[in-house]
């Protein structure tokens, strides 16, 4: 399954948007955190997990989804949220903890919920699969259109929740796709030190579902694998497991010294940065030239900048609003 030209440009635009968002967050996050790094300081306090390098996973999957489809993302959710079409203003305002954020700042960057596009997150490793399976069950029982996609990291494939949810989804033949973003590191522990198999897609065979591997952070490889899996799900043929070899170009979280990485690894990954690679591929395919690229990148940046301005200009809720919305 190949993307058409519109889909190619859409994926590139989403990747550029997401990357710019992460780069801007990186700068804003460090405000107030120098010279001494204190996580509680600055306009964006708390943990921050950036998705630089993992954009192909998000865009290759979400290119096949519409607002009605359900996505459950991880503690590293921004690229997926951008590709799923969440409201950027409300998302960035949420990251800033402002009143105009999705929850008025009660959730934060690991807990982004945009029900208008059926997007949610869980900050707990492995806890995206159950809710996605349940949303898929809901669609099946209601006869409503739409599939569900759970994103997870390769480390989550060692959680019980992973194995339970794959089994449940297969037993009930649910319209769900499980997408592993294998960035090779569970914080500081390498995949091969934590996982008994070199590739998690082989684990699908234990649950009687197809397992697909996408190598080298390949945008169109993700598109093809996800397209087939989502078509199977829509067609009532049940779940699929996909593992994507991707790269985490930032630390696990901001402030992570990344001393655990072998020397030269990060430089190597940066040379394989998927965004310049895809830009080059689109130029070679004649879909993009320098002028068009500049225009596209400029538009993407302006979208992010406008959302950041919106967030910065927004107020905080009064602190006692913390007491609200525990229940509906």
């Amino acid at each position, binding site marked *: 399954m190949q993307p058409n030209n519109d889909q190619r440009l859409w994926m590139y635009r989403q990747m550029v948007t997401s990357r710019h968002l992460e780069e801007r967050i990186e700068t804003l996050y460090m405000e107030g955190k120098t010279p001494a790094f204190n996580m509680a300081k600055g306009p964006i306090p708390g943990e921050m997990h950036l998705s630089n390098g993992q954009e192909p996973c998000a865009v290759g999957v979400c290119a096949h989804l519409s607002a009605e489809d359900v996505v459950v993302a991880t503690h590293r959710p921004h690229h997926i949220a951008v590709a799923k079409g969440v409201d950027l203003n409300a998302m960035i305002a949420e990251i800033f903890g402002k009143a105009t954020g999705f*929850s008025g700042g009660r959730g934060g960057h690991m807990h982004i*919920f945009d029900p208008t596009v059926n997007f949610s997150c*869980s900050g707990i490793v492995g*806890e995206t699969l159950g809710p996605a*399976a349940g949303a898929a069950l809901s669609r099946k029982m209601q006869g409503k259109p739409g599939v569900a996609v759970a994103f997870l990291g390769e480390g989550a494939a060692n959680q019980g929740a992973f194995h339970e949810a794959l089994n449940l989804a297969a037993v009930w033949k649910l319209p769900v796709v499980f997408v592993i973003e294998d960035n090779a590191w569970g914080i500081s522990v390498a995949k091969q030190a934590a996982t008994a198999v070199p590739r998690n897609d082989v684990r699908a065979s234990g649950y009687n579902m197809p397992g697909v591997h996408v190598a080298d952070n390949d945008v169109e490889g993700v598109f093809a694998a996800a397209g087939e899996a989502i078509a199977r799900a829509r067609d009532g043929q049940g779940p699929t497991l996909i593992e994507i070899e991707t790269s985490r170009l930032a630390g696990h979280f901001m402030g992570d010294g990344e001393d655990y990485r072998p020397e030269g690894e990060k430089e190597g990954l940066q040379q394989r940065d998927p965004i310049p690679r895809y830009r080059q591929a689109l130029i070679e395919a004649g879909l993009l030239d320098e002028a068009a690229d500049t225009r596209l990148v400029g538009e993407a940046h302006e979208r992010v900048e406008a959302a950041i301005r919106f967030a910065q200009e927004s107020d905080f809720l009064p602190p006692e609003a913390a007491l609200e*919305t*525990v229940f509906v």
Partner: protein
Amino acid sequence: MTATTTASSSRKLTIARAMAEATAQEMRQDPSVFVMGEDVGPMGGVFGNTRGLHEEFGGERVRDTPISETAFIGAAVGAASDGMRPIVELMFVDFFGVCMDAIYNMMAKNTYFSGGTVNVPMVLMTSTGGGYSDGGQHSQCLYGTFAHLPGMKVVVPSNAYDAKGLMTAAIRDDNPVVFMYHKSLQGMGWLGTEKGATVATPEESYTVEIGKAAVVKEGRDLTLVSLGVGVHHCLRAAKALGEEGFDAEVVDLRSLVPLDRETVRASVAKTGRLIVVDEDYHSYGVSGEIIASVAEHDLACLKAAPRRVAYPDIPIPFTPTMEQWALPNADKIVDAFHQMMSQ
């Protein structure tokens, strides 16, 4: 909304039957309601509370699950956020250790994380309690554990009338509700059965408001506060104390979240004496919360230091001599009152 028992409804039900009837009535009128859990299908639930549902509604809406609580309770969260109203069973509350993340980090928090835009209208029903030598991983109550964590309502019925009304209310609630039923109240003969739990229960649908305690016996001299099976211990103790000339009031909490502090305070304001009876562990639990709710509100209303009759802070022992020794009962409540009066 809240019905009262009518003369026409002298039919008695067990809690198990009452739960199943409430569920069936809601399933008939709301296609989004469905049940899933271990052995809830043709078997009708290990504790009888889904009996008859599979025959009426079939395997699509009354689903036996794999023994995978993390997956199917997580799935209930996802389904509840997508327009369904799942009733999901955690067979024994003791099993929460294998699935608590789905419960307290997602079911209970997604509404808050979404600023109230994502509802999680699900019922988590789970059995509690010991007394039949099932050992320390199948006998706990854990009321305080669940009630401590914000974002989920918690109800604990002591009789079939309340069980039916609370179940109907729980299913209709747009928030997650943990429905904790005590095994010895279920009316399953093999578990030993508290006869007082099997009471007149109307056939028609009705709700019991979540968050409202009930004064099940009025009195002047002492307030006994409890929940679930403890209410029956209290009623027996009140009877025994009555023979001694003391008039005990018995408050059945029925809900832990929200907690009806007002009813408890009003009762203690009247009697001046408080004993809390709880089959859950003694420390950091319901009994301490009830006493604090009174003490921080009006210490002066107390004529004596409050007491609690609760489960000792030990894992639940298997052998009957030890387990029965550790459990709250009416004699212990009477003793606690005597000690209170002798000080």
